[in-house]
């Protein structure tokens, strides 16, 4: 066997382990579905009336649920980061990473398994949340190609946030800290993006931040692809951010992983 097939085989083994974990302890999977669903219901049925009326033409003329749902899908991707971070940290603090370090296995496989599982979980959670949004009145109008593009953006962003979450999990001292470190990804950045209201409606200073942070182009590209409003260059910006975050997250995770071996 070549080094490459061995490392692929090790990664698949670790991925299988993570998938088993996910279904044996489904609470985290469920909670990363419930959080965005609660947000969806809250904004559609409680806050959505006045927000939708107030937005008017700023929402590109689409119903508020159609404006909101792509943002909620983005939030679903982000809420998966917590699970990955917690799982990586559990392995680290529980000592099993120490065991793996003394075994003749490809070191990258440990994190690759976590990241791969994070991406697969996100596919599942975003599918469920999209289904709930449809039940709540969301009417996506994507073509087949548009649907694939949506999947592509979700996968790229999930991959990026999974690497970042792995790095956060490796840098946290406790499981609670690993969860806490992902809170900005789960809540702060989604709220300070165009997920709930368009950036133009925000105060100037916040508008600048909102327009230039990665969660906005991800939301804009999903919204454009799913509702037919113009996407502009947001898909490329979203993919570029995803590539940048993935690379930074990967390098940071690698440093943190190797630092543990001192």
């Amino acid at each position: 066997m070549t080094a490459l097939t061995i490392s692929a085989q090790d990664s698949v083994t670790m991925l299988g382990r993570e998938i088993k974990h996910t279904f044996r302890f489904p609470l985290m999977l469920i909670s990363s579905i419930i959080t965005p669903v609660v947000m969806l219901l809250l904004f559609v049925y409680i806050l959505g009336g006045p927000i939708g009326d107030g937005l008017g033409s700023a929402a590109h003329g689409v119903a508020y649920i159609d404006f909101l749902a792509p943002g909620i899908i983005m939030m679903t991707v982000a809420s998966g980061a917590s699970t990955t971070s917690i799982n990586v940290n559990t392995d680290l603090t529980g000592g099993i990473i120490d065991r793996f370090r003394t075994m003749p296995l490809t070191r990258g496989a440990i994190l690759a398994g976590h990241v791969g599982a994070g991406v697969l979980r996100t596919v599942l959670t975003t599918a469920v949340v999209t289904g709930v949004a449809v039940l709540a009145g969301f009417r996506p109008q994507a073509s087949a190609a548009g649907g694939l593009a949506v999947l592509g953006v979700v996968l790229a962003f999930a991959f990026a946030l999974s690497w970042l979450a792995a790095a956060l999990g490796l840098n946290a001292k406790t499981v609670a800290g690993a969860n806490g470190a992902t809170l900005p990804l789960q809540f702060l950045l989604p709220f300070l993006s165009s997920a709930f209201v368009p950036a133009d409606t925000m105060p100037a200073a916040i508008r600048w931040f909102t327009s230039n942070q990665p969660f906005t182009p991800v939301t804009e590209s999903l919204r454009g692809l799913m509702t037919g409003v113009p996407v502009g260059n947001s898909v490329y910006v979203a993919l570029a951010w995803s590539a940048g975050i993935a690379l930074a997250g990967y390098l940071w995770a690698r440093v943190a992983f190797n630092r543990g071996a001192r």
Partner: protein
Amino acid sequence: MRGLRKAYGEKVVLDGVDLHIGEGEVFALLGPNGAGKTTTVKILSTSIPADGGTAAVLGHDLPAEAAAVRALIGVTGQFSAVDDLLTAEENLTLMGRLLHVPPAERRARVASLLERFDLVEAAKQTPATYSGGMRRRLDIAMTLMGRPRLIFLDEPTTGLDPRSRHIMWQLIRDLVADGVTVLLTTQYLEEADQLADRVAVLDHGRIVAEGTPEELKRRIPGAHIRLRLADAGALDAAALALPEGTRDDEELTLRVPNEGGVRSLRDVLARLGDDVSVDDLSIHTPDLDDVFFALTSTVKEQNR
């Protein structure tokens, strides 16, 4: 290993450790908390690099040939590193997959390890339901999956009840019977005495003594016979017959230095004669506790 050094910032953990461990030997690294035992194990098991000194494991230099070393060793850390969400069987299978054991052999090996470590009934349960002893057994079974030639056991019985400890000792003895080399760390002197062919006492990052348990015990004076006499008169008579003894008038005892063995005991009794009435006699040989306290305290004195 020669002159092994390791420091975390200002804190020196290993301060030039030299050790040679023979193949097929059980070697115990004995020391209090913070002596550097775990750090030594981590360096030799390729987890962390040393700051200085040289080390070779089964003919492979560290850290250059770490990959070759990893294929030959098995490590059981201080805290059980089992996967809590997987059953015993799945944990062992995971190890087999990661060690690239072919499927048929892997299944056979999982079954035989479950059998050997008395985990057959618990095979389909996750470790959440296990006792401390069972977790430890699973942990060591996982370590053996790859048929290692050298096993590191870092405080294998810490936190176990006496029964589990004895079971663990027997398992370790069985490993040795298979010809595996074992490096064991422990803070229990009795454990080193029970299991080890040779012992090194580690204190403040330095080896303060090394040898077989017997050799170490011999280095410490303090073997004696303790006689308890019937009354003050008998004590006087005994003290007269055995002038090298130390008397304790309150307890009516006489403590006579004795290097051990039946001959010297017979000699003491002969000199005592038949007329002195002895209530009780006990023989004290220094155990590793005495050695340990004597050695670790002398180092402290020197450092002062």
